[in-house]
Structures are given as C-alpha cells and as structure tokens.
C-alpha cells in the first residue's frame, strides 16, 4: 500500500515537472509575427475550432492565449538587457523600434482659419521675427529670460518707482494706473483670443458653397439644409422670400436645431390678442364662399324639376288623347293639385337654400 502511494505521488510529481517544461516550448505550424517594439505578436495559424467545442471553449481559448503569450515572452527574454539606474537596479530589456503602424486614436485636427492679426500680417507682408529666448540684463549682468520668472527687466510687482509721465495729472496714482493698464491689456488679449476662437468655430460649421447647386445625388436632409441656407442668403436675410410649396410656415429661428424658445407665459396679452385677431383676419380672407354647396343645391333643384316635368309628360302621353280628354274635367284637377304642392314646397326650400 505505501509503495503504491509513493509511486503514485512520484508519478504525479514527474508529470507536473514534464508539464512545466513542456509549457515553456510551444509548437506552432506557422511562426508568429513579432513586433517587439509594440509588444505585439500576430498568430496567423488557423484558429482552434470553437463551435464544435461546446463547454470546453473557455479552456481552449485560455490554452491558446497561454501559448502565444509564452512565445512572445520567450522572444522578449532574447532581447539585449541592461540594468536600469546603475548596478542593483532592475533588469530591463531594450525594445527595438516599433514596426507596426497603429491607426490614429483621434481624428486629424482641422486647419484653423487665420486670426485677424494673421490676416493683417499676410496682407502687409509682415513676417515673424525670430526672437532669442534669453536677453542680456545689464543690471543683473547675466542672461535672463525675455518674460516670465526672473525676467530681464526686474520684477514689475517690486518696482518701487513709477515716474509721472510728461503730460499726466500730478495727483494720479501711477501704480494704480500701471495695474489698471495691465488689467485692460490682459482683458483685451483675452477678448481677441475668444473672438478668434469663435470665428474659427463658426467657420468650421458653416456649409460650404459647392453643394448649394443641386446635383441630383443629394439626400433630403442635405437639400433641406441647403434650401435653408439659400433662403437666408439674401440682403434681408430671407425675411421676404416666398415660401416653397411644401416648406413649413415657421420662420427659421436663430437657434435652429437647438433648444426651442417660446413666448413668455404672462407676456403682453394685448399684443397676443391683436396678433390672434390678425391671424383670424388672414385666415378668413382666404376662405372661399361656399360656392360648391350652392352649385350642388342648384343642380339638385334643377334635377328635381326636370324629373317632375318628365313624370308629368310621361303619364299624360301614356293615357293618350282619349285619356287626357276623359281625365281633364274630373280627376285631373285633384291629381295636378296634389302634385303641384310638393313641387312648390321643394322649390321654396331650394329657393332659400
């Protein structure tokens, strides 16, 4: 019993050792492609069949990942190594240059339109003068920065003298003036910077002129956008442009596509009332009189009259000459009288209608 157990234990231990050793060497049909600069290994072997695996999928995938990682790491160990941070530091491999070109993470930045100064400079032909970064400071007798920490002209906040300029008011506080002017300069710069930004932003979102001509290949939204731009590109900004047949009646609001803005709840009620009355007047003026009904009624009356006349004529002709002579003195009076009344009623009703 003890021998069996010992043998079993030894066999298990040996198997584990073999597996460990086996796991260091991996057999693959095709060699992997390595880009050690990016720590990348590309495996072009046909993939392990995952569909037929069923519950063993996880195991297969894990084994595949382990094998490939093993190959990559063994390659990394073959790289030239050095000790970082002098002797006693960690062992570091020197990675070669990466060969695999990774795609851009963010989209390419758009070229921004030139600022007002840049436009002016281009117009005048002013070119940028290359300035030296350090300036000789005579007082301190050393090279100092042009601006910033320890600048050439001395710290402006510690200036203890501020001369009163020639034509200035003697009672004016010069230090306050200097501070104020600096603040104004900063504010003006900031304003111009924001203006340039806004101009660039606006220029980026404007519709280019090329698609304004209909090509036949534009989709509905594009055409609608272009139609809106075309409508607004008049001297009066589209206020007096006639509407297209199926265009909506609302004038394009200033924040088209953004938040809707409504009239205030308790705004000028008298103005609201007058607007509504005007709207009613416009609506009322365009409404046509009910000609259709009148025409239909007239037609109906005519039809009835004709039908009645036709009936009368038909009945008399059926009886013949003899019948007419016989009927006229006695019964015809009654019949014609009876027949006349409903006709009269109908005509009266049609007359008022």
């Amino acid at each position: 019993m003890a021998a069996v157990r010992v043998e079993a234990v030894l066999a298990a231990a040996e198997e584990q050792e073999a597996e460990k050793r086996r796991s260091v060497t991996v057999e693959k049909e095709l060699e992997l492609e390595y880009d050690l600069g990016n720590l990348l290994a590309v495996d072009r072997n046909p993939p392990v069949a995952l569909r037929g695996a069923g519950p063993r999928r996880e195991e297969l995938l894990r084994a595949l990942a382990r094998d490939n990682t093993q190959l990559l790491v063994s390659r990394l160990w073959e790289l030239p190594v050095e000790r970082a941070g002098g002797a006693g530091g960690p062992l570091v491999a020197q990675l070669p240059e990466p060969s695999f070109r990774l795609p851009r993470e963010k989209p390419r930045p758009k070229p921004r339109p030139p600022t007002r100064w840049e436009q002016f400079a281009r117009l005048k032909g002013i070119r940028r003068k290359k300035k030296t970064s350090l300036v000789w400071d005579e007082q301190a007798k050393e090279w100092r920065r042009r601006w910033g920490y320890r600048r050439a002209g001395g710290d402006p906040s510690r200036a203890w003298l501020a001369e009163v300029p020639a034509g200035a008011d003697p009672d004016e506080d010069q230090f306050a003036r200097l501070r104020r002017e600096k603040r104004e300069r900063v504010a003006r710069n900031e304003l111009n910077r924001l203006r340039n930004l806004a101009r660039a932003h606006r220029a980026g979102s404007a519709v280019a002129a090329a698609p304004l001509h209909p090509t036949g290949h534009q989709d509905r939204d594009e055409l609608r956008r272009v139609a809106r731009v075309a409508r607004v590109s008049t001297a009066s900004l589209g206020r007096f442009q006639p509407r297209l047949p199926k265009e909506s009646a609302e004038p394009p609001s200033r924040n088209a596509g953004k938040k809707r803005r409504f009239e205030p709840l308790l705004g000028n009620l008298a103005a609201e009332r007058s607007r509504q009355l005007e709207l009613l007047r416009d609506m009322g003026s365009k409404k046509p009189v009910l000609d259709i009904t009148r025409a239909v009624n007239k037609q109906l009356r005519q039809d009835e009259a004709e039908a009645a006349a036709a009936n009368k004529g038909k009945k008399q002709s059926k009886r013949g000459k003899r019948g007419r002579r016989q009927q006229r003195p006695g019964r015809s009076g009654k019949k014609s009288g009876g027949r006349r009344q409903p006709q009269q009623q109908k005509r009266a009703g049609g007359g008022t209608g």
Partner: protein
Amino acid sequence: MRPLTEAETRVVFEKLGKYIGENIQLLVERPDGTYCFRLHRDRVYYLSEKLLKLAASIPRESLVAPGTCFGKFTKSQKFRLSVTALDFLAPYAKYKVWVKPGSEQSFLYGNHVLKSGLGRITESTAQYQGVVVFSMADIPLGFGVAAKSTQECRKVDPLAIVVFHQADVGEYVRNEDALT
C-alpha cells in the same frame, strides 16, 4: 404651461372655425375680460387672465388643468376638439342639428345620428361641415360632422347616417378619466 406658437394657433383656429366660423373673434376678444389660450401637456386651455396669473405660480407637475380644456394636440400635431369645449361652441355655432327625443339617448351613448332621429337641421349645411348637436329643447348635446348636406338629408332613407358623432356630453360619464 406656455402660449401657443403661431402654427399651433393656426391649427386650433382652423378647427374651431369649422364649427363656429368667424365667431372665434368673440372668443378671442371679449368685452368682459381678457381671455387667452395656453398649452399645458399637449392640451389647449382657455382661461381668463386672472386665472392665468394664479395658475402661473403652480409647479408644472402639480398643475392638473388651468381653465377650460378645448382639446388636445396628438403626437402628430393634429388638434382634436373635446366635449369640454361645448359650452363655448354651442352659443356661437353656425350650423346646428336638432335631434328627436327618441334618439337623444342613442347619441349620448356615442352612436351616430340617423335620418330617423333627425329633427331639424340648419339650411345650407354642406357635407362634412362641423355641426353642433342640440336636443329639441335647445340643450347642446355635443358636436359632430354632417355626413350629408341639407338637400341630401331630405331625400335619403331613414336608416342612413346624417351626422357623424364626434363628442357628446355623455362622455363626462363614460370617459371620465380621459377628460382633464
């Protein structure tokens, strides 16, 4: 709650005009006070200025109904007139239909008005004209659409529909929850 935009006002006035014609200006401009239309949760309300000022101070979620509901805008921005507007439409109605006592109940249950139940009808009513339905005692019962013009009404057989039902006062009992 907000005022109606111009497009919405146009839609509402067109719908009201089908029933009361140019008398809408009597609703817009009244001698006894300033009244206005306001939109609250897709429903159009008609309320006086005094009520408007009071309702303006109520939070939107808690406000149930300011004034009288005339109708509501559907999801596709069509305006549907509801029976709660009857009190304002009835006095100004241009085309009226009087219903016989026997078929009053049928109309109040939501059925159309047949020729057999038709008492009187205003002269020169066009087909598909908006009409207000009254009982023979001149009590407004609801409104609808004329299915036949007056001339045709005279000649049609007794079981034909002459007025399509759109809204009636029976809805106050039947559709209590749908009205605000």
